[in-house]
């Protein structure tokens, strides 16, 4: 250490700017304290230490405060930052757009069906695929109060079909084990 002490003395007097010496001082706590004492000798001789507690040394507290502030202000680098979570909430404009499309499709269907029905009533040459009138000639209204349009032969035919189904069912029951 003594070999550096003379360099330290020259460094304080601004007679030495060797980077090596500065590196050594920065890495050696004992040399730094010696630097403080050498500095104090000059301050006392120049009478720059009036009414002071000459033992005062704020170096450690200053460096600790700086280190603390650095930690507090530490911001994680961008690459390490987590990606923002995807929201499950559908954005307003997206949902609004879906409703708008659905409404316009429904509107087109309603308008076109009205037009087709009008056309079929007046024009018998309309394409059969668009003709929604039953083959029987008239559509029966679907209602509990509506009276069915049935003839005696229809009723007889229906009863015969039901009886045939019942007989078939009984036969199947007898053949099963």
């Amino acid at each position, binding site marked *: 250490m003594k070999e550096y*002490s*003379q360099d330290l*003395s*020259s*460094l304080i*007097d*601004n*007679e*030495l*700017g060797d*980077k090596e010496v*500065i590196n050594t*001082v*920065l*890495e050696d706590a004992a040399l*730094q304290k*010696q*630097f*403080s*004492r*050498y*500095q*104090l*000798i*000059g*301050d*006392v*001789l*120049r*009478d*720059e*230490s*009036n*009414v*002071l*507690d*000459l*033992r*005062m*040394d*704020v*170096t450690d*507290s*200053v*460096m600790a*405060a*700086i*280190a603390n*502030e650095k930690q507090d202000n530490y911001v994680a680098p961008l690459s390490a930052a987590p990606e923002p979570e995807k929201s499950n909430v559908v954005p307003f404009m997206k949902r609004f757009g879906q409703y708008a499309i659905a409404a316009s499709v429904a509107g087109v269907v309603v308008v076109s069906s009205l037009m087709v029905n009008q056309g079929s009533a007046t024009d018998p040459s309309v394409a059969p695929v668009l003709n929604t009138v039953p083959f029987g000639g008239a559509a029966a209204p679907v209602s509990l109060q509506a009276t069915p349009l049935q003839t005696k032969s229809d009723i007889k035919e229906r009863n015969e079909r039901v009886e045939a189904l019942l007989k078939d069912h009984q036969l199947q029951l007898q053949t099963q084990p």
Partner: protein
Amino acid sequence: MNERELDLQLIQRIQNGEQQAFALLVRKYQTRVANILTRYVRSSGDIPDVSQEVFIKVYKSLPNFRGDSAFYTWLFRITVNTAKNYLTSQSRRPPASDIDAEEADSYDGSGALKDDANPEAILHSQEIKQVILKVIGDLPDELKSAITLRELEGMSYDEIAQIENCPIGTVRSRIFRAREAIDKQLKPLLEN
């Protein structure tokens, strides 16, 4: 190399991320900063806290330091501003007259400081001063002359070598030996 160049070298190291270089600047200037603060701060017990605040401000402002003025001049301005802010926070008015950087070093702050420092600290500081002056008084003449010309007259090694009629290396060695002798007595006083 002059004082300004050495300071700039340390500042460049700090700006390059070598935080420990700032510790050396604090060690170099803390007594001078405290001496300026005695002009403003009435309670000597507050001087370490305000000194710490000064150096933290200096550290934070270092990225903006361009070296247009000497580091000490810049440090001096920050010290005075911090002291005035301190007085404002204490609901006291700053002194009507300011001091400048040149006269700050030799300023005797004892008039402004209403000293409520503990007597033990004052006695201890007086003891340190007496030891330093006594050791210098007891040094051989060539060592005494070399350290006095350097510290009190601010002469360079080259100028001292011309006055003492000896090589620069001898001046370097004499000043170091003088400091070493003082340090031998000073170190136990500061460590206790």
